[in-house]
């Protein structure tokens, strides 16, 4: 058994002068305090990576900086799936009795710490160095390729994709920490500059500074208890050139394994936190996970299904698309928000019932997947 006992999240956007370690530290401080713990209680650290300040031993660099001497520590790298992959590992480490309180932390000054070109270039390196990168693709282009095929096979339109950007922005308006605070419309998304067709600027998440952290513990530390009910991964490829058919992607495999591990059905889920690096990512994952029928996710957005007061509230903080994306911490914000919702602390964004949540992360180009169920047990 393992419990998410505390969460911490900084605002996303510009944090002038803050390093990756600073942002990690701020989030970690918040999460440890939220769990009602002290630094000395933390005996394990899992951290992500920083493209701005790469290091071969980031977890120990952070532990020293933050002032912890853990019994267990290392970094984890699974691209956008890193946050949930760390959560899964933390769950198993705690469940196996290796450690008691794991600090899971990610943070990066990705926006102010490097030029936008440097950021785009660094991320494009997930492509194959010989067979893809020389062609000048970008991350939006990798996802643009997937989008073109998905739209072709399932009749999804650019207007459909735009709905997801509008939804995430609407949700972000309720969170003071979000990077964007201006409402947008489908027409705004359609009129935004083309980046890698069919994806336009507002179909893409921004580059942000920020940090997120949580504590995973063997026992609850407070009045509420949110436990990891079950989780699983799937890895089908790294490069989009080597990706399987759309019907055989890893999200479907991961969710099937996670459902089996958790003994949970999709119909049990009350809140969804789904990776949304691009509008197409969110549309595809919702359908792969079974949260919408094939080609029907946009219609569900239009019908209010994923609103805070809808049947399946989704990324109520605004997701990567509008809360922001600071690298590893970006998708960790989804878990932080989920925890706030599950424990009734989401304020003006509070949903009616978040007793069972499904979280899903995606790394690479739909390459690596982690599905995870959280359940409130008290």
């Amino acid at each position, binding site marked *: 058994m393992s419990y998410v006992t505390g969460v911490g999240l900084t605002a996303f956007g510009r944090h002038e002068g803050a390093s990756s370690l600073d942002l990690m530290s701020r989030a970690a401080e918040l999460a440890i305090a939220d769990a009602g713990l002290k630094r000395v209680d933390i005996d394990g650290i899992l951290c992500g990576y920083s493209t701005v300040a790469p290091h071969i031993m980031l977890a120990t660099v952070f532990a020293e900086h933050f002032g912890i001497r853990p019994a267990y520590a290392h970094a984890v790298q699974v691209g956008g799936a890193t946050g949930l992959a760390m959560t899964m590992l933390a769950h198993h480490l705690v469940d196996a009795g290796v450690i008691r309180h794991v600090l899971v932390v990610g943070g990066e000054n990705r926006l102010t710490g490097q030029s936008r070109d440097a950021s785009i270039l660094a991320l494009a390196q997930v492509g194959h160095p010989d067979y893809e990168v020389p062609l000048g693709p970008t991350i939006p282009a990798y996802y643009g390729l997937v989008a073109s095929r998905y739209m072709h096979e399932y009749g999804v339109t650019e207007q459909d994709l735009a709905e997801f950007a509008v939804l995430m922005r609407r949700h972000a308006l309720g969170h003071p920490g979000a990077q964007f605070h201006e409402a947008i419309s489908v027409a705004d998304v359609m009129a935004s500059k*083309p980046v890698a*067709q069919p994806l336009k600027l507002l179909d893409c998440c921004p580059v942000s500074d920020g940090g997120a952290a949580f504590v995973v513990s063997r026992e609850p530390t407070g009045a509420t208890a949110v436990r990891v009910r079950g989780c699983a991964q799937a890895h089908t490829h790294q490069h*989009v*050139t*080597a990706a399987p058919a759309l019907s055989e992607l890893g999200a479907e495999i991961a969710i099937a394994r996670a459902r089996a591990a958790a003994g949970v059905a999709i119909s049990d889920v009350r809140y969804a936190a789904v990776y949304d690096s691009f509008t197409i990512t969110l549309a595809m994952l919702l359908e792969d996970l079974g949260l919408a029928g094939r080609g029907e996710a946009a219609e569900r957005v239009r019908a209010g299904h994923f609103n805070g007061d809808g049947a399946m509230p989704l990324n109520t903080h605004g997701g990567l698309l509008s809360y922001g994306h600071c690298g590893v911490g970006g998708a960790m914000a989804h878990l932080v928000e989920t925890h706030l919702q599950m424990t009734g602390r989401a304020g003006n964004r509070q949903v009616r019932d978040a007793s069972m949540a499904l979280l899903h992360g995606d790394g690479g180009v739909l390459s690596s997947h982690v599905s995870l169920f959280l359940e409130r047990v008290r």
Partner: protein
Amino acid sequence: MSGNRTAPTGWTVGEEAIVYQGCAACGHVQYFHRSFCAACGAPDPGERRASGEGIVYATSLVCRAATPEARAHVPYNIVLVDLPEGFRMMAHGDNDLAIGDKVTVRFVRFAGRLVPHFARTPPS
């Protein structure tokens, strides 16, 4: 795996050809060069040249590039093409290509490199 007897050939090393590998043991075809078959592990898959014909699987017209060299070419179309030899590859293509188009390769310069570029196959 005895491996590593062959160095990669084809457009990735500046030659006007699309080269792939076929395994003599299990018949698996792979595009990314390795010294072994990724399906069965047998060493030294044989090297073959593709015809250069294919069908467009996906497209994305890049309008925002990441490097000054690539920016000089904007917009350029990144395509995934399925080749009849049994593998998929990434390449450049004419800007008006659509999914399902029958295409033929030629080789062009892009950001200082030789890259494969597909255009619609003229009706025969």
